[in-house]
């Protein structure tokens, strides 16, 4: 479904990614793990069109693609929940869930936004994740708690039809219950035929849902492990750069 070949990116002198190649298939969850600063988010941002790689070959459904902007990524069926900068704080929950793709009544250059038709899908999306503490979906997101905001961001992944879903640390700040729902969501996406890339710091989480685990170390790919054939110890060792 998605193949990223030989991806390199440096920020000034800092090499964030150095010749990384990963792929993820239909109905597969690829976990992306690594130390802080290993380059996980950078890879996610490149595939979602937020930053440009210095060098990369990207393939979606086998076709070579040039993901030059987030809009291109979206049109290729790629949905991303970023680690930061994911919500428009001054807008309410509904507008954040549909940010950039507000449901509209008319087409043409001036789509007329239809707020009422967005209420129900918002409620459904939140209830899927068991987000029960947001009293009013017209509350500006700035007035929600950190975990509630995270939940709103993750709920975006459940809306619409996407082939490829990238989740960058989606459970950070979430309660145990909500994190479990996010893992359910990942499984549902997988069963629905999506290719899911899950960035996570939690080895338990990774071993719960991932089919394969890709380990990044200092911007290089330190290995890809099939879950069935590996152990948490082996993955942790790779994350640490080979030494125990």
């Amino acid at each position: 479904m998605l193949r990223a070949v030989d991806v390199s990116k440096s920020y000034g002198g800092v090499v964030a990614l150095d010749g990384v190649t990963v792929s993820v298939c239909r109905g597969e969850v690829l976990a992306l793990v690594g130390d802080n600063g290993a380059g996980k988010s950078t890879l996610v941002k490149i595939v979602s069109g937020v930053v440009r790689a210095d060098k990369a070959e990207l393939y979606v459904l086998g076709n070579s693609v040039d993901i030059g902007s987030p809009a291109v990524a979206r049109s290729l069926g790629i949905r991303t929940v970023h680690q930061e900068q994911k919500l428009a704080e001054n807008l309410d929950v509904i507008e954040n869930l549909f940010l950039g793709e507000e449901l509209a009544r008319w087409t043409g250059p001036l789509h007329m936004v239809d707020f009422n038709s967005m209420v129900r899908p918002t409620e459904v999306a939140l209830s899927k994740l068991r987000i029960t503490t947001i009293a009013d979906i017209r509350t500006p997101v700035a007035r929600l708690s950190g975990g509630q905001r995270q939940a709103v961001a993750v709920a975006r992944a459940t809306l619409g039809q996407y082939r490829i879903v990238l989740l960058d640390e989606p459970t950070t700040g979430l309660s145990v219950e909500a994190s479990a729902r996010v893992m359910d969501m990942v499984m549902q996406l997988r069963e629905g035929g999506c290719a899911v890339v899950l960035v996570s710091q939690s080895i338990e989480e990774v071993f719960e849902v991932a089919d394969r685990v890709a380990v990044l170390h200092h911007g290089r790919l330190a290995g890809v492990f099939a879950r069935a054939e590996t152990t948490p110890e082996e993955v942790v060792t790779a994350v640490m750069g080979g030494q125990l």
Partner: protein
Amino acid sequence: MRSEENIGQRGAGDVRVAAAREVRDGGQRGAQLEEGQRQAGASRPGGRQSRVPSWLSAIVEQGTAMPALISLVVIAVFFEIESHYFLTGSNLSNLVVQTTTLVPVALGEVGVLLLAEIDLSLGSIVGATSAILGVMVSEVGVPWWLGMIIALACGAAMGAFQGAWIAFIRIPSFVVTIGGWLGFLGLQLFILGPQGTLSIFNPQVAALTGSYIPGGAGWVVGGALAVAVVARALLRLRAAGGRRRLGSLTLPALAAALMVGVVAVLNSYKGVPTAFVVVMGLLFAGWWILQHTRPGRNVFAIGGNPEPARRAGIGVRRIRFTAFVIAGTLGAVGGLMAASYNSSAGTLTGGGTLLLEAIGAAVIGGTSLFGGQGTVWAALSGALIMSAISNGLDLMNASSPVKYMVQGAVVLLAVTVDTLLRRRAGRSRRLGGITMSVGAP
């Protein structure tokens, strides 16, 4: 984001998500519903615990226009007591016509301020486009309508030029539009040449600010608008099925009463000024675009924080560019109004305090200088406040120094009152970011 529209729908959206939960966890449901209710009570501003009277916070909730409207009433009463002439039909009619230069400029400014940008060149665009109109009509001799179209197109082009620099080359708008301010002023002086003024003797150009629509037509339009506003609010109240408080009718009712009152007053003199109709049309168009279209909604997202907007696939650059094109065009509308009102274009047209009055008007009306918050009605209410003060002080034969000092004080006062009300109602001026002229929310 607390435009009338959004507030209007807040009630409708006030559906506890808990209620949408599937039935299979019925056992926990009661408890969770209770939790939801507790949360709802606690998080609603102006709830029972609040020290602010609920009607007051309701008014603040209702829209940013309210404090400005109240200020306007206070100003009107004050000047009426002082001069006994302020509230006459002829004076109010003159006041409205005088404001028609300021309102389009303020409207353009609201559009760019919502994006957390600023346009300091609009005064010069007013001046340059009025000079262009003058040359076209008085010297080149094109028909009045073609002259107006050319002036508007030039305003749009000036906005596009700056917008390209701002949106695509990413030079801060503050700097680009300072350049525009000087450059377009130079253009204005160049067009006007050594004699410095151009008289415009053209009946149609003069009619823009010098004609009035007949009383009957004024009643039909004003009445229809008033009925539409109230009917819409009533329909919404019914659709919301009692979830909305009756208080949500306050603003529509007031607005309708105001419309009828304005038509009555203006008709008592010569009728509704044509220029006022034009300006109201622009305001309604601006309101509709910002509240109801996708690019309009995206303006608020970008103004709040451009990065999430960009990541969501919104065409940030295109929207920024367009906002400056629109601002330039609205500057040209101001230029047409000024040329029409003065029957001339001069080196001073669009100069002086016009630009800062426009920014002041936007801010008095509740538009944040830091983006993401405000409404187009700010342009109208703020501009009316600025003009009313100036007009009232003229009636009192106040001198220029006094006028400026009073205007300055009122800007400060209006924004302070607005900010304090908002803070007490539990809403910071700019959510989640820097707060304007407020410390902590």
